[in-house]
């Protein structure tokens, strides 16, 4: 019984039904945010230490994100927060009425940071809607491509986007007391990374100058070179298609991938050792850092990397093939796994627009999923995207992002959610390289120039900014070993003569066909919901990880994940005058989520027959 708030119950056979006798089963309370704003205005007028701190834009995130906070600089507390996505493009509207085959290429452009995962999620949605099962090598090659995507995504975030916040230059400006301590702190990972003290590491994190910063840039290129051997180009690969992949797989393809993948064996060891040293230093020197960006480990993930012997693209079997993935889909509430089933993950999703620049929509076309599990009128298959640009107001509407919830709970998403769920649920396939213990993930990294090593990521006690980033560092070996596992499978398939990479299909000219794609982006949870009617796209809805993370308040007042994480963040920065305050703690908390806004916003289609179009906002997960 995974749902606590939605009116969905299960009979003894496990079939879901709508609880009876509830008058308005999907009703929810709408809270007036104006009362809180009046109080804040009052406080600010009375107390000079209470002030509004705005970041527009929040930099070193992908895409257009702005953040508003009210902080008490005397008590060193954050009093109020608002997260704003500041871009709307209308992809969902543009997709409406088009040939479904166009969706993968067009929706890929929702996000330039993780185009490949959008293309793949779109392909999965089409495969489910139209019943297309890709051949094993097609599935395996997609897995490799999308594991490699993370190998350029995570280092980019760790060293170019989040990394500077832990560099000697920035720490000296905001917390000079830590610099001397770092100079005396012995680095435990010296044997792997070669640095004697934590300060030595911090110096090489300095933007554009530090060796670790520059090395990360060059490692992202190594990964991209492997990526384009399959994708043709990046960040929007040209080869991901419904039914598999459009690549002529030869020995050269696999060789070009492998020669670059092995470089990530050493780099995995180095990156995890680097960030263990830096984060342990902060947390050990000032345990208050445990509260930076802290929130309950309440997270959702779609899972990623299908097993070629399990994935059949059907809705009917999605719980099975979902649970067979190398990364387990599901939901964590306060650190506990409440489901690993894709059907329940799907049915629990809703989106709300009370504080977003959209109009609410009417209608409840799909009352249940294809197997009878109840769906809310706010479920993506029922949603409509109706943009309504308006003034930015903390009392009312302030973001192009919507508020997605699962079972009425704001959910966090991230690469780390993928690892957390997989480690905790222990459902993933048996692997020589990856073992899940329920409290940790053990990753066996083969030798390259460094000897083979056993890395272990442990589920942390506090879910804070430091642990998000640490987990992301461990996602590098995790992804590399999934790529390795699939590379071996590709070799095996080719040895066995299974060289087909795609399944041909026709677009049905009649009938209604629905599907959803669920696949992890670099920063986690990603779904595309699709309705095909009479051969064209009738509705397309995208929920991205940053749609979840950057969400504005829920109608009933619950803050979105960024908002909640920053609310819990103590101000540990040192400053003399309020004017000198920079807000490093708040920015660390936000950046730990790896915000990627381009695909966060939705767009709506106006007056369409049940079409919801969603737009993706800007994602800026990138660099440059």
């Amino acid at each position, binding site marked *: 019984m995974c749902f606590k708030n939605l009116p969905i119950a299960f009979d003894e056979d496990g079939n879901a039904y709508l609880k009876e006798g509830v008058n308005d089963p999907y009703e929810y309370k709408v809270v007036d945010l104006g009362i809180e704003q009046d109080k804040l205005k009052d406080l600010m007028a009375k107390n000079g230490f209470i002030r509004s701190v*705005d*970041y*527009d*834009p*929040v*930099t*070193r995130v*992908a*895409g*257009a994100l702005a953040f508003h906070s009210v902080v008490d600089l005397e008590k060193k507390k954050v009093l109020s927060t608002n997260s*704003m996505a*500041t*871009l*709307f*493009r*209308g992809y969902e*509207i*543009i997709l*409406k009425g088009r*040939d479904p085959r*166009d969706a993968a290429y*067009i929706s890929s*452009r*929702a996000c*330039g*940071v993780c185009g490949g995962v959008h293309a793949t999620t779109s392909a999965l949605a089409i495969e489910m809607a139209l019943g297309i099962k890709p051949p094993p090598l097609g599935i395996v090659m997609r897995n490799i491509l999308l594991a490699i995507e993370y190998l350029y995504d995570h280092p980019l975030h760790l060293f170019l*986007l989040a990394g*500077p916040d832990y560099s000697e230059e920035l720490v000296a400006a905001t917390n000079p007391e830590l610099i001397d301590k770092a100079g005396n702190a012995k680095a435990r990972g010296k044997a792997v990374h070669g640095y004697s003290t934590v300060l030595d590491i911090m110096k090489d994190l300095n933007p*554009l*100058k530090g060796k670790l910063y520059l090395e990360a*840039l060059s490692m*992202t*290129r190594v990964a*991209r070179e492997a990526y*384009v051997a399959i994708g*043709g*180009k*990046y960040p*929007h690969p040209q*080869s991901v*298609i419904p*039914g*598999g*992949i*459009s*690549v*002529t*797989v030869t020995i050269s393809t696999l060789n070009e991938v492998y020669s670059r993948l092995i470089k990530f064996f050493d780099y995995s060891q180095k990156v995890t050792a680097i960030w263990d040293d830096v984060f342990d230093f902060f947390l050990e020197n000032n345990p208050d850092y445990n509260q930076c960006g802290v929130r309950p480990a309440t997270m959702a993930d779609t899972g990623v990397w299908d097993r070629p012997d399990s994935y059949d693209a059907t809705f009917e079997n999605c719980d099975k093939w979902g649970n067979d993935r190398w990364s387990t889909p599901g939901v964590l509430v306060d650190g506990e796994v409440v489901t690993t089933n894709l059907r329940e993950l799907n049915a629990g999703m809703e989106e709300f627009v009370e504080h977003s620049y959209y109009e609410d929509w009417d209608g409840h076309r799909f009352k249940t999923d294809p197997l009878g599990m109840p769906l809310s009128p706010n479920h993506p298959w029922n949603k409509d995207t109706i943009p*309504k*640009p308006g*003034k930015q*107001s903390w009392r009312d509407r302030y973001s192009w992002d919507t508020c997605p919830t699962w079972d009425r709970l704001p959910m966090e998403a991230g690469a780390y959610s993928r690892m957390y769920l997989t480690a905790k649920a222990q459902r993933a396939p048996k692997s020589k390289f990856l073992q899940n213990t329920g409290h940790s993930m053990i990753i066996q990294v083969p030798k390259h120039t460094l000897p083979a090593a056993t890395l272990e990521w442990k589920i942390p006690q506090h879910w804070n900014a430091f642990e998000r980033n640490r987990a992301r560092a461990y996602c590098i070996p995790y992804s590399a070993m999934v790529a390795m596992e699939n590379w071996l499978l590709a070799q095996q398939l080719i040895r066995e003569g299974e060289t087909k*990479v*795609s399944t041909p299909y026709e677009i049905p000219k009649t009938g209604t066909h629905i599907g959803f794609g669920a696949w992890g982006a670099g920063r986690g949870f990603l779904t595309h919901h699709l309705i095909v009617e009479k051969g064209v796209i009738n509705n397309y809805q995208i929920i991205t990880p940053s749609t979840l993370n950057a969400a504005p308040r829920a109608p009933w007042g619950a803050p979105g994940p960024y908002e909640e994480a920053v609310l819990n963040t103590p101000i540990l920065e040192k400053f003399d005058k309020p004017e000198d305050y920079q*807000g490093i703690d708040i920015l660390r908390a936000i950046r730990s989520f790896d915000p990627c806004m381009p*695909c966060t916003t939705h767009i709506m289609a106006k007056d369409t027959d049940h079409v919801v179009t969603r737009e993706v906002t*800007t994602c*800026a997960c990138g*660099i*440059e």
Partner: protein
Amino acid sequence: MAALNDMGALLPTNIEEVHAFWVAGGSCDGCSIAIVGATSPSVEDLLRGVIPGAPKIVLHHPVLSVVAGEKFIEPFRLAAAGKLGAPFVVIAEGSIMDESLAGATGGYWSGLGADEDENGDPQPIPSSSWISRMSKHAAAMIAVGTCATWGGIPAAAGNPTNSCGLMDFLGEDYRSALGLPVVNIPGCAPQGDNMTETIAAVLLFLHGLGPLPEFDELGRPAWLFDETVHRGCTRAGFYEEGEFAEEYGDKECLVEVGCWGPVVQCNINKRGAIGGRGGCMNVGAPCIGCTMPGFPDSFAPFYATPPGTIVSSNISRVTGSIVGNLRKMTQNYQNRTAKWNKEGKVPSGWGHVEEPGFLQKVAHFAYEKLQFRNSPKPKESTHGNILEHKMDWKKKENGQLKIK
């Protein structure tokens, strides 16, 4: 402009720094991601000022900047007011959205930075307002990616934001402070080096080191976009011989499974996507025309055979089957050594190689007559005495080098 004979420095240093403002409008950030992959030159080399002869670029980019919020926006305000006190270029990524539509209901589509409203509350500043104000003072306006150049997907049919490209937004009479119309580097995303190379070429020109880069009638770097992607395609030879892929994954030419390469101006097959690797059609993926002004609508539905192909690929099937068969005959002889020809046998343990039949021998005899009509055929080996092979080079006669 610095002269090359300036004895004061090895290479010119008259402009030490150029500011570059990266303004992302309706974008996915893919162009930002793509440029970070560039290596010729790399972004970090441009930013660190370590390329002799090119000024250092001071980049104001929302994804890379160390500072955030108003500190980040301050230089934008100065540049927009013409008060930066240093030369700058604007690099626009993403479509320009019609903010008058959003403004009608008091809102915006794409915001960057904020101004206070009459109540002292922050209101986002539309990205396009930065573009129009900064364009008046910019040394150059550079549009990167198909959204900023032509409008791209946000400007596709049915879009709610009435988006367009930079050229449409600024108008045909627009000239930068240096007198340039908008420079366009298309692609979704553009190949990384196409962006850094063009930027470097403009910078070298400003220092008097390079020629004025040539741009075509749409403002594209001519040396990058003059040719079709098909001309540089590793599969173009299949087209020539009339061999076509029937399904995804096949090794032949992709036109019949949806490739628009023969009419698309792009260099990705020649240059590769990064470090010479990849390239859409090289790996097996059909071209959907992402560098072209008509993208995406003129190339939809993707994966369907382009109508022009019905004529052209069938012509090449006919001619190609003749040419291909003749080539195979020649190729068979080229797979043989002189020794094998003499001995009438290929000593391979891998498989049996058929000896050429009578007709093939006749054809080959005629072929060699043509091949050596103006020069002698290399002599057959005389075993043992290398001195007999001393070659006596004569002077050029009739434009040919002759061997005695």
